[in-house]
């Protein structure tokens, strides 16, 4: 009974948030003169209407889930890692270059490319962590700034030294990775690839890690009260670097999976344009950094986005309707977080006043 209640309670608020988001979307649809019912019907079809669209949604969710997990880990440890964008891009770039330039059989290239993506992004992220622990530079700001640096760096790499010069049109992109080093598709002719399995496994592992391992416990305590953690013997600097590395590494994995599973080359801007990184951060915020919740929220956001494309194809309502709904959703959720926070605080204050006066 208690458990049922708890589940119902934890589901109620996200559902409420979704409802509010959809309501705001409905207002916007009415303003541009569309039919709310038709638009939402198209949105549903675009996201889940057929097996093809459904796998499309899963494919889009893949990088969002992975990024969201990474951000969730960092948030749990108390670090506002907003650098997912740069980490994603460096991961994708490194994976592409590794797959292109390392000799060997396809499976080896694939494996090394994924590892390279994880490591490059992990180091980039841990660098921000290092600046914070070593020099007390605000992590939130440094990760944001490092995003821009990574984006321009990747853009330079694929438009100068590693540009694909084979095609007639000189596009800012690498040459194509050979077929043998591609991540396999899960279903013939569908866009969802093996990266989705990584995302699923990652979700479960992160959940178990945070909940049941000593190191996960230390991460939680570090996020809860860093002074308490260091008092209890948790090595803050080390744990911070590790969690930032893993956090960035997951974003890097997302980038590598996109490059090796969907695009088969690194194209300038192709990872930033769909807004994967920010969607991942949104998913984490929606789920208050709970790994399984993050995966579900990522799926929801992906569905909104693919659904938006369906809307664009079949109605006069622009696909940006989904970014509007997402934004309202997240705004509502940020108020919700604080709402429960106030309730807690009020209770605590009453208790404290009663005992300490």
């Amino acid at each position, binding site marked *: 009974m208690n458990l049922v209640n708890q589940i119902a309670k934890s589901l109620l608020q996200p559902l409420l948030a979704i409802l509010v988001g959809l309501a705001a979307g409905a207002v*916007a649809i009415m*303003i*541009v003169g569309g039919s709310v019912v038709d638009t939402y019907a198209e949105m549903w079809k675009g996201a889940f209407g057929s097996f093809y669209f459904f796998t499309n949604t899963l494919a889009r969710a893949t990088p969002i889930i992975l990024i969201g997990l990474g951000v969730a880990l960092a948030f749990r440890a108390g670090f*506002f890692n*907003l650098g997912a964008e740069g980490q994603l891009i460096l991961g994708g770039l490194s994976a592409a270059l590794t797959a292109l330039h390392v000799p060997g059989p396809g499976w080896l290239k694939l494996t090394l490319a994924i590892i390279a993506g994880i490591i490059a992004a992990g180091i980039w992220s841990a660098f921000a962590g290092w*600046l914070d622990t070593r*020099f*007390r*530079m*605000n992590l*939130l*700001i*440094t990760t*944001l*700034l*490092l995003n*821009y*640096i990574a984006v*321009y*760096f990747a*853009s*330079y790499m694929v*438009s*100068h030294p590693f540009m694909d010069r084979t095609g007639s049109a000189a596009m800012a992109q690498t040459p194509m990775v050979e077929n043998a080093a591609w991540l396999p598709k899960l279903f013939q002719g569908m866009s969802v690839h093996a990266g989705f399995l990584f995302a699923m496994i990652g979700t479960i592992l992160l959940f178990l890690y945070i909940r049941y391992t000593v190191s996960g416990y230390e991460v939680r305590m570090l996020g809860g009260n860093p002074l308490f953690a260091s008092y209890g013997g948790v090595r803050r600097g080390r744990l911070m670097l590790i969690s930032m590395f893993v956090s960035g590494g997951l974003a890097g994995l997302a980038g590598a999976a996109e490059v090796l599973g969907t695009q088969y080359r690194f194209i300038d801007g192709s990872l930033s344009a769909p807004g994967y990184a*920010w969607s991942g*951060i*949104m998913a984490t*915020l929606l789920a208050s950094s709970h790994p399984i919740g993050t995966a579900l929220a990522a799926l929801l956001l992906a569905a909104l986005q693919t659904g938006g494309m369906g809307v664009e194809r079949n109605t006069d309502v*622009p696909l*940006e*309707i989904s*970014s*509007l709904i*997402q*934004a*309202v959703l*997240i*705004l509502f*959720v*940020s*108020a919700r*977080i*604080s*709402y429960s*926070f*106030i309730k807690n*605080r009020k209770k605590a204050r009453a208790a404290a006043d009663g005992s300490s006066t």
Partner: protein
Amino acid sequence: MDLLLDATLYSSTLRAVTPILLAALGGALCARVGLFNVGLEGLILIGAFSAIVGNHLTGNIWLALLFAMTCVMMFSLLFAYMTIHLKANVIVVGVALNFLALGLTTFSLRAIFDVKGSYVDRNMVGLPRWEIPLIHDIPWIGRVVSGHSPLVYFGLLMVVLLYVYMFRTVSGFRLRAAGENPIASRSLGIRVTQYQYGAMIACGALCGLAGAQLSLGQLTLFTEGMTNGRGFIALVATMLGQSNPLGVGASSLLFGFMGSLSTRLQGMALPTQFTSMLPFVVTLLAMFFFRNKSQLADARRSNESSR
């Protein structure tokens, strides 16, 4: 060397610095009342877009500015309500606001102008350029200082005005007090929330103007996400300047200068990516070198006290 003496470099610095400066001053006001405003980026973006819309609707540049300020103030009011009233985490709301701004502007761009990516209207009138009578005729200085949009001068004026407000007036004194120790201020009957709302709304007005300078200052154009990190640079300028208007002004000038220097360097052999990266690298370096300014100040203070 010629490059560094070129008057147009400094003149373009003044132009480039204005959006950052205005937003950073708004950020400083927020920081002074204890609200770390990560949403500057989004507020500027809304300002840029609504300035274009205002211009499109009214055809009058001044009404457009007013429209932009009003729109952004509405959003900063929302921000204030959520952080002050609902006690939402300032950073989370700031991030959410940035999403909202991006989503809303791209959506409205489609809904209002029916274009994707960017909107240009050649018939639209941008901000006027003010030639300053006497200064205009001074050889080098005239070319740097004269001939800018009114917002450029307004930004510089605001540095001084805000400084005087914060450190010389009773109201500014209480605003700083509200931020430094809200509990004590409340117990003295100072209306802390009122100051917080006031600061947020003023920040909204400033960000509205910052956005207007961006979209109506040079070209009359709006591009999706055209703020391109300026809000975050403004945030760093606020931090580096210790939320003191003079300091904020100085650090904004530094970033503005790096920005326009990087545009100039594009003409040379450097790839554009590196020149675009430059302001961000400099911001990062500035954070590194000025990071423990407050710690140094503390150390100096305790030295004085033990003497």
